[in-house]
């Protein structure tokens, strides 16, 4: 599979939180040939099932990567201009002058995020970034045209392609978290060549950016035995303190209260066995990812988190390394292939005391 082309299709789909259908179609097309069954949940998450080779009832592992991106939504009009509010934490500092699409009932309209020219700003305003409520979307249309074609509640997305940088790195919008959706694709593809006894539930979840809603719902509905959440994490750049993880340095494996320690160890051992780099991401409390919602679903679900290092997160030039995606996908696939009937017993919190010699 051409991972770059796949990622480009994923990232260039326009699908902010709550409006994920466009990217769901792209993911479904990629996962359909790799899985046995697919469904769309009530909340809009995509679940693809790859059955294991074991005798039923089989154990289930859920892979969860959110597919929503940050965006905006039209809140009201000011003449020919659209005022917007954030849909999932858009960074208003990084969108001024960027091209956007406004998704109307009659199709998408191209526009630009506008701001008043410096000559119309006070001195103080000239020295700071405008806030979101000072920005607007300009479609180059008259007020009448805008009123006829655009409605309050229409969504707005950044309209920028994925581009290739040096050394197998790519930059674009929505790599948070389509990079991890691509990890699941790589994993499912690797599983075509591997034997696995467990069922694999690949979930592309909705509404992570607005409160982990998709993952919470699917964890409750699917009630898996294990879960691995996948989400982007920070790569080093000026202004980003440690811990941060080098692009191309492998997918960090998170360690902390949000994760089952024995599941963490098992994944780490798999990485060691495959000689794949797997740096540890210390995460003492909330991870802020789908893993946070999944872990406390129902009776509790042993959960792990793998990340893809990313620069410029929550901008339209999020930057990742394709090698991290490939290695992470392979790691997850090999881990799944290693799961057997007894795995759950092996990841208990407190191992029985090692038997003493005289008892032997």
């Amino acid at each position, binding site marked *: 599979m051409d991972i770059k082309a796949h990622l480009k299709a994923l990232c260039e789909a326009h699908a902010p*939180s709550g409006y994920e259908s466009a990217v769901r179609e792209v993911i479904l097309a990629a996962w359909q040939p790799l899985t046995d069954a697919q469904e769309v*949940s009530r909340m809009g998450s995509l679940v693809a099932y790859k059955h294991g080779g074991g005798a039923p009832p089989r154990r289930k592992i859920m892979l969860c990567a959110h597919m929503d991106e940050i965006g905006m939504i039209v809140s009201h009009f000011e003449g020919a201009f659209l005022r917007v509010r954030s849909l999932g934490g858009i960074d208003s500092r990084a969108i001024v002058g960027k091209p956007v699409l406004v998704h109307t009932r009659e199709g998408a309209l191209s526009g630009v995020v506008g701001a008043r020219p410096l000559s119309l700003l006070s001195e103080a305003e000239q020295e700071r970034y405008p806030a979101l409520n000072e920005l607007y979307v300009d479609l180059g249309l008259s007020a009448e045209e805008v009123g006829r074609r655009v409605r309050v509640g229409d969504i707005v997305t950044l309209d920028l392609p994925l581009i290739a940088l040096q050394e197998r790195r790519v930059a674009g919008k929505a790599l948070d978290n389509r990079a991890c959706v691509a990890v699941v694709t790589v994993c499912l593809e690797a599983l075509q060549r591997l034997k696995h006894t467990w069922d694999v539930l690949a979930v592309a979840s909705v509404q992570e950016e607005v409160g982990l809603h998709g993952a919470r719902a699917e964890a409750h509905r699917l009630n898996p035995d294990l879960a691995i959440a996948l989400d982007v994490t920070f790569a080093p750049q000026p202004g980003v303190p440690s811990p941060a993880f080098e692009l191309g340095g492998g997918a960090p494996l998170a360690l902390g209260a949000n994760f089952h320690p024995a599941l963490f160890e098992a994944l780490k051992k798999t990485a060691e066995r495959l000689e794949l780099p797997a740096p540890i991401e210390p995460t003492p409390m909330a991870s802020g990812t789908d893993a946070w919602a999944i872990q406390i679903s129902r009776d509790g679900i042993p959960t792990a988190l793998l990340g893809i290092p990313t620069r410029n997160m929550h901008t339209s030039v999020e930057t990742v390394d394709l090698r991290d995606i490939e290695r992470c996908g392979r790691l997850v696939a090999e881990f799944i292939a290693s799961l057997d009937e007894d795995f759950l017993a092996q990841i208990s919190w407190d191992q029985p005391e090692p038997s003493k010699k005289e008892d032997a």
Partner: protein
Amino acid sequence: MADKALIQALVEAWGPSGHEHKVRALIEGYVRDLADELRVDNGGNLICRMGSGGKKIMIAAHMDEIGLVITALDKPGFARFSMTGGLILLTLIGNRVRFADDTIGTIGVEGSALLPTELPTLKQLFIDFSTGGENGGSVRVGDHAALTREFAVRGDRLIAKSMDDRIGCAVAIEAMRALKGKNLPNEVYFTFTTQEEVGFRGARVAANSIAPDYGIALDVTATGDTPKNNSMAVRLGGGAAIKVIDSGQIVPPAIKELMIRRAEAAGVRYQLEVLSGGSTDAAAIQTALSGIPSGVISIPCRYVHTTSETVDINDVQACIDLLVALLEQPFEP
């Protein structure tokens, strides 16, 4: 047109969050003969089923109103309080509150009574419940109170405390009246919820026990139609507001579009709502269990969380009409 006497009775009832029993009793009186089945759950929610079979739809309108609770007694006749729900400090001084036993208190601010010029902090405010007698009244720590003010009508505009969300309750009751005797294609659970103002707690409990397929909250929303207020597109008199998004929830597009289709087919005047700040019971219903797609029919309301919450009777009727149009047909988003 919507029943003003019903609305007046509802808004004048006393029911701060967690203390909805008086409102519940009042509503029970209106709906007992309308519902096929009626129960009060452990969360204090009044759940009224109409119809059976088909999609299970939970309709939520909250009974509670913003209020306050006594935290400490001060000199005789005075007490300190904290808020239950989002009281606006700027609007409190001089307001009157009512306790469960109908004791009336007045909110005052520390210092000279004349010309306070700065926004007070909560700690500077107190309640005067003095009677002139030596002990200064019967108020105790832990007692709850709600703001009080009379219902008023100005043309099509209805003005009262706790339109949030008794007007939602009125919409639900009127819809039940309209649906009574009809062969409903859905199993509808009209749920009058508790503790919305302190975090949608009643609706969350009810959603877990009803386990509906879909949820619809009925609640007020703010407007952007007052002087120098260009914060949002909703305006009073603009019709039922179909929510697109608020701070707690993204309404699934399919639900929003179903509401739009039904409104257009039934000739109900509507507007689309994008709200910053605030949310409704639908946010809690949508995140319950495995996710319950939920929408909101909002009643446009000026001066939300004051004692002069103002709605337009035509908008109220549009909300009733939209709800009835949604429920008397199969619910297929």
